[in-house]
């Protein structure tokens, strides 16, 4: 047995909505994640993916249950679990370099070492030429790379990513996928990756956790064949994608029915917007 590293144990979480009713968002979520693995969470919009990530990050408190990292329970944010959000969240008043060095100032590292480290990481994401630029001078993809650099420079045990690429165009996304896989292999950081893009999940991760919705609970955990180094044959990925989509479809139907009531009459495959493989038409 491999050693379990990030442990999520019986997490329950409710929010109070506008009508002052308690809405259960996470229902008894438990899972264990190995050190150095790449795990994706997929699920319909609003199923609680971000909430689960926030709980692991320590940004939200669970109603019950606990999170532990190598046996130690966590209860507040910490630089051992850094988050990359959907929007880059770079500080506009700092240069690229200062943004990346932000977290390092809080560690007991000398200024010179911090700068050296930051520059190394920026080189890794191919942004060496832009270290003195301000965020607004960069493209969306570049900004997100800075955000990733800012997280990586902390040398976190766990990198939490909440739809980090969903605001980017397809090309930039593909490029960053490859960059992220390289970084993951190089740093051996444990990655917890939230997405609603099934293809992305299959391409990147070793394990995919499918969440059911209202309340969010684990519906299935799927292991992706370990063929990361060579390009996986198209048929294998397609099969995986289809399998996950089938699992998800019932959940998505549930959401749409709830939200649209009787108006809900058609089914479309809106998960893959730019799909060349006509995936899902036969579902």
């Amino acid at each position, binding site marked *: 047995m491999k050693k379990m590293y990030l442990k999520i144990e019986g997490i329950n979480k409710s929010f109070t909505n506008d009508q002052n009713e308690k809405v259960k968002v996470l229902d008894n979520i438990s899972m264990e994640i190995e050190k150095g693995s790449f795990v994706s969470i997929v699920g319909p919009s609003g199923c609680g993916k971000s909430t689960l990530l926030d709980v692991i*990050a320590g940004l939200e408190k669970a109603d019950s249950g606990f999170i532990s990292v190598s046996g130690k329970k966590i209860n507040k944010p*910490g630089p051992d679990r850094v988050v990359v959000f959907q929007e880059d969240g770079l500080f*506009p*008043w700092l240069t690229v370099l200062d943004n990346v060095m932000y977290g390092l100032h*809080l560690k007991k590292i000398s200024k010179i070492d911090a700068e050296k480290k930051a520059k190394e990481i920026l080189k890794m994401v191919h942004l060496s030429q832009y270290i003195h630029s301000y965020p607004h001078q960069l493209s969306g993809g570049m900004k997100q790379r800075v955000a990733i650099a*800012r997280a990586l420079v902390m040398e976190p045990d766990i990198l939490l990513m909440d739809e980090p690429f969903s605001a980017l165009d397809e090309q930039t996304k593909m490029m960053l996928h490859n960059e992220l896989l390289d970084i993951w292999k190089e740093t051996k950081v444990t990655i917890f990756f939230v997405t609603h893009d099934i293809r992305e999940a299959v391409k990147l991760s070793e394990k995919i956790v499918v969440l059911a919705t209202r309340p969010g609970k684990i519906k299935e955990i799927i292991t992706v064949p370990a063929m990361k180094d060579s390009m996986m044959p198209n048929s294998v990925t397609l099969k995986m994608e289809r399998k996950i989509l089938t699992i998800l479809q019932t959940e998505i139907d549930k959401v749409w029915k709830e939200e649209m009531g009787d108006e809900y009459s058609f089914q479309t495959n809106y998960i893959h917007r730019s799909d060349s493989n006509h995936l899902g038409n036969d579902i």
Partner: protein
Amino acid sequence: MTSRLSGLPDFMFPSLTQVFSTLFNGLIDGQITKAIIISFKRILIGFSIAVILGFILGYLIWRFTFVEDTLGFLVTAFQSIPSIVWFPLAIIWFGLNDFAILFIVTIGATWTMTMSATSGFKNVPELYQRVAKTLGSSGFHFIKTVIIPASIPQILSGLRISWAFAWRALMAGELLGAGGGLGQLLENGRALGQMDLVISVMIIIAVIGTMMDRVVFVRLERSVQTKWGINQAT
């Protein structure tokens, strides 16, 4: 010039040349210059206190709900009182002296500063706060490196408006009060029937007001906007 043509008396409408020569001489011989220095000293002290108070009150209102529920409302009420209205009270408390004037200058700027600091802090994007927290920031470091810098644009426009309020309060206070300054010089001009002096001082007041606004505050705002890449509306 105009007064000559219309035949109005000199002591009511002095000629332009007369005004400019008084203005020039006043700057040279030190009468006006001295008044400017006195006024500036007062506004710098009063304004600085107001800014510090505004930051502290703004922080408390932002940070604690019960302060917001109580003080937040009072600040809005106080802000709607023209600061010169405080003058009678100030005279009773401090006497007719520098303190009374400083008091109304400070009070003229404090509430506006408080309100803009509060809304600046409140409008700091949640995302920046979450990012900073996950990178390990908290407490004073968090305030210093996220909350304050992120609210700079709003605070700058607050500073600008507060300065304008302080400047108005100062002139009113000096006019009614004692101890020199531009406002006092204005009152002297009136008492001595020196309309040329009165108008000279008015010009100085307008020039200083405009310069502070255009040269100092607008420039500061612009440079922040350029650095941050905020679209310039004006």
